[in-house]
């Protein structure tokens, strides 16, 4: 087994494990500052912030010989016997030099910079920089230009780490970004007429260690220190990228990718990144209503569950349409509830929205055509409980010769997901409960209209296209008047206390074999449900 010595502490490497100096140092809790290095991109070793001392330990004598000069930690591999020193006078001086150099032409406009608060240049300067400015040069103002529809460049804030350039070459593959000019006149730019417009462009903003690349959608909307970050899973497509929802006072401001080696590595697509606007759409429906004598009338949530329970219990033949936007816990609760009333209740998989073709980028990142997060999960709940999968089209077909006393339809789609003809077909159902976020033909035809939550407001788990289950908690509270699906079903099932998605998932892992791998918790990166499946 390979052993590396970092600041006097031994780090054991697993077989075949390849770490550089920065990663090896992180194992003993030593933070090596860096700008240009990123685990997802090639190494250029040009910012020189991660300079460390290195040497070798003789395996026989234990004698250590150090190199006389500093080396970049990012470029120096950790092999058996490698010695790293991350704290010494020489290193401190080198870091102070790089910080001083980077600030010579930096505008230092933190008060008006979006990155302030999460800026490496700021953080490292406080930790490694000099107390005084020795360069008696007045920095430039920060010139600004748009690189594309999503990203704006503040030219003089740039530290030339070239992460964004490498991203556009290696990950998104369109190579729109480049370095122009030479020496201290260098700038990031795009070729005239070829803006940064790939479908992963927003990632360059996350990669930028300073405030040079600004997200035009987020620019000047919120100071980062006011926001809370919540781990979540993107509901944009069936890839199910791990994300962070960043909000302040129940308003989402941005989504960011969260590292997950099994799903999205460090990236997410623009479609997902900016696909949260429906959460705060003013046209969202927020009040539960029922058909009364003179059209719709409002219902109190406090009496709603009793009322629904009474009406459904009186119904003989029930169908529930489970949307692929529901979490597995919600789908399971609703299915369990209707099956508790009608043992033969029909469980239907809601319509699966698709758009175009799967799109795969050079590094393997894929935007999927299936624009819902949880088809696999809901499918398995239905198959597990009903033994047969009934699709939305099957269900619509059966409506002409099969009569249902009650149908519960869940929606939660971002855009129109059915037309008038569907509402026609279901209009004869005596008890039509529609749970959705936006008004639609079906919504208008319902006997009960129940507002639903969006992805940022739900608790639960999604199963992505590759059978990976990822759990998450709500990031923002739903608008006033909305009770989430999970909470409502929890109440209908007469479970004690508040909705606890983990308790539902635990039950699910016991009840359905498919979910059994998730029994012991599933961590930040989710769990592969296939791991419990027989070959």
């Amino acid at each position, binding site marked *: 087994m390979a052993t590396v010595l970092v600041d006097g502490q031994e780090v054991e490497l697993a077989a075949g494990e390849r770490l550089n100096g920065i990663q090896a140092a992180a194992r003993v809790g030593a933070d090596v500052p860096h700008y240009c290095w990123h685990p997802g991109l090639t190494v*250029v070793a040009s910012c020189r912030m991660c300079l460390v001392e290195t040497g070798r330990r003789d395996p026989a004598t234990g004698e250590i010989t150090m190199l006389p000069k500093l080396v970049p930690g990012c470029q120096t591999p950790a092999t058996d016997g490698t010695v790293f020193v991350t704290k010494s006078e020489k290193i401190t001086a*080198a870091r102070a030099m*790089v910080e001083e*150099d980077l600030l010579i032409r930096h505008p*230092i*406009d933190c008060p*008006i910079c979006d990155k302030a608060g999460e800026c490496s240049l700021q953080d490292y300067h406080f930790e490694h920089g000099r107390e005084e400015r020795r360069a008696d040069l007045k920095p430039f103002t920060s010139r600004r230009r748009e690189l594309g529809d999503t990203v704006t460049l503040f030219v003089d804030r740039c530290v030339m780490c070239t992460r964004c350039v490498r991203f556009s070459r290696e990950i998104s593959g369109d190579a729109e970004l480049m370095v122009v*000019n*030479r020496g201290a006149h260098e700038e990031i730019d795009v070729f005239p007429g070829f803006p940064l417009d790939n479908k992963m462009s927003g990632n360059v903003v996350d990669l930028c260690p300073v405030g040079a690349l600004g997200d035009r959608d987020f620019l000047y909307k919120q100071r980062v220190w006011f926001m809370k970050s919540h781990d979540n899973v993107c509901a944009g497509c069936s890839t199910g990228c791990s994300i962070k929802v960043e909000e302040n006072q129940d308003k989402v401001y941005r989504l960011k990718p969260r590292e997950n080696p099994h799903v999205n590595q460090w990236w997410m697509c623009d479609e997902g990144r900016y696909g949260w606007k429906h959460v705060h759409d003013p046209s969202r429906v927020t009040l539960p209503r029922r058909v009364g004598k003179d059209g719709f009338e409002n219902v109190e949530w406090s009496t709603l569950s009793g009322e629904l329970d009474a009406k459904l219990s009186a119904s003989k033949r029930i169908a529930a349409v489970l949307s692929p936007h529901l979490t597995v816990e919600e789908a399971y609760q609703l299915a369990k509830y209707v099956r508790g009333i009608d043992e033969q209740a029909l469980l239907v998989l809601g319509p699966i929205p698709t758009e175009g073709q799967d799109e795969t980028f050079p590094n393997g990142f894929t935007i999927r055509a299936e624009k819902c997060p949880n088809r696999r999960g809901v499918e398995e709940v239905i198959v597990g409980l009903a033994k047969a999968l009934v699709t939305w089209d099957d269900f619509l077909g059966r409506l002409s010769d099969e009569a249902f006393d009650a149908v519960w339809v869940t929606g939660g789609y971002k855009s129109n997901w059915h037309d008038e003809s569907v509402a026609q077909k279901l209009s004869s159902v005596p008890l039509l409960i529609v749970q959705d976020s936006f008004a639609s033909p079906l919504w208008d035809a319902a006997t009960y209209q129940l507002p639903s939550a969006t992805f940022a407001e739900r608790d639960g788990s999604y199963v992505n296209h590759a059978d990976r289950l990822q759990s998450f908690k709500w990031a923002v509270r739903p608008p006033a008047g909305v009770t989430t699906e999970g909470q409502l079903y929890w109440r209908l099932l007469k479970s004690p206390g508040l909705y606890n998605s983990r308790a539902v998932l635990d039950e699910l892992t016991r009840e359905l074999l498919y979910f059994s791998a998730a029994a012991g918790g599933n961590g930040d990166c989710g769990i592969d449900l296939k791991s419990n499946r027989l070959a």
Partner: protein
Amino acid sequence: MAEFEPVLLANIHKDDSHTLRAYESFGGYAGLKKVLGSMSANDVKELVKGSGLRGRGGAGFPTGLKWTFLPKDHPGPIYFCLNADESEPGTFNNRILMEEDPHQVIEGLIISCFATAASTAYFYMRYEYPLAWKRVQAAVDECYAAGYLGKNILGSGYSLDIFLHRGAAAYICGEETGLIESLEGRRAWPRIKPPFPAVEGAFRKPTVVNNVETAACVKQIVDRGADWFRSIGVQPDPNNPRDPGSFGPKLYCLSGHVEKPGCYEAPLGITVNELIDNYGGGVWKGRKAKAAIPGGISMGLLTADEFDCPLDFAGPGKHGCLGLGTAAVVVVDETVPMVDFLHNSCQFFAHESCGQCTPCREGTSWALKMMNRIKGGKGRLKDLDLLLEIGDNIGIIPGTTICGLADGAAWPMKNAIRKFRGEFEEYIKRTNPDGYMETHPVPVLEIIGAH
């Protein structure tokens, strides 16, 4: 004139010296025929190794040793890059060879390629050399017509193509890996090592990069033998086991304030004084010399007192310079203010820094801005310490940059200020009598006020 009989420059003044007909009449391509007819690649490698030839491009790395770094029994292709991106200020030895005797270079190149089993050679020529471009291209064409290049050269079964590639007009393109990047069509940003070019260079294949003069020396070694080569120059220092010695003739580019500037061939180890007096006709206008650059501006500065310094690979280092470099000696006479000299040097490196590594990009630009201010009469004494601090901390020797450009930028700063500090201080005090003692940093509010 000196007694040394020029070898590399033997034919440059003859009529039509750049043509194949003339070159063959001087015995040209006999060496190539000998190599292809009777020697193996390994023989040539051993011959060059035995000659003690060190690279003429600046770093002085032993050429034969460099060739042996190529992977053994590599299935190919192996590439050979001839570095003709001669852009060190004061240097023009390659240009003379390429313009006046291109066949000598090409013959050396073909022999070098044969020795390293390279099947393709890229002749990376500085953009600003139009005449050399024409002459070398014409010479390559002549070689193809005469069967010295192309498939199955002279019936030996060895094939070689030479592509002349016009450089991207930047100093950094002459850096070994910057050249390779530029050749591949990218920005000439030097690569991180390892892997070294010999393992993974141009187009991710093993690559040798040699200088034009090195190739010419290879040709001469093949013609005259390793012993002849070792008979010229300076023996290794017996007290330094790592000194491989400095053998062979060297082209010295003498310029600046001398009566007869030019490119002169002399044995390695000639002193600055000898070069100026025996070849350059002395310092011009009867003045005295104040300083000299020993080998291109990036090597630093020798004071007039240090002119007995032998110009071999080890000599200038003993006087605090970086090394021999390209052996371009630029003489500075007593009337030149050192502030002007350093300003000029800083201007060059700030302009040519490729901008990849932070310390070089910002350090050279900051140094220039300070020199601008000093020259403009607003200097402060503490600026000298700052300049020295920049100089001491940028480059591959402290480990803060990828390539040696920053070392080259640092050495003139360090040498000029350390060796002529009194003059700098006097200049600053004279031109900025009210503010030379100022040490305060710029107030923070003034910085934020820039908006």
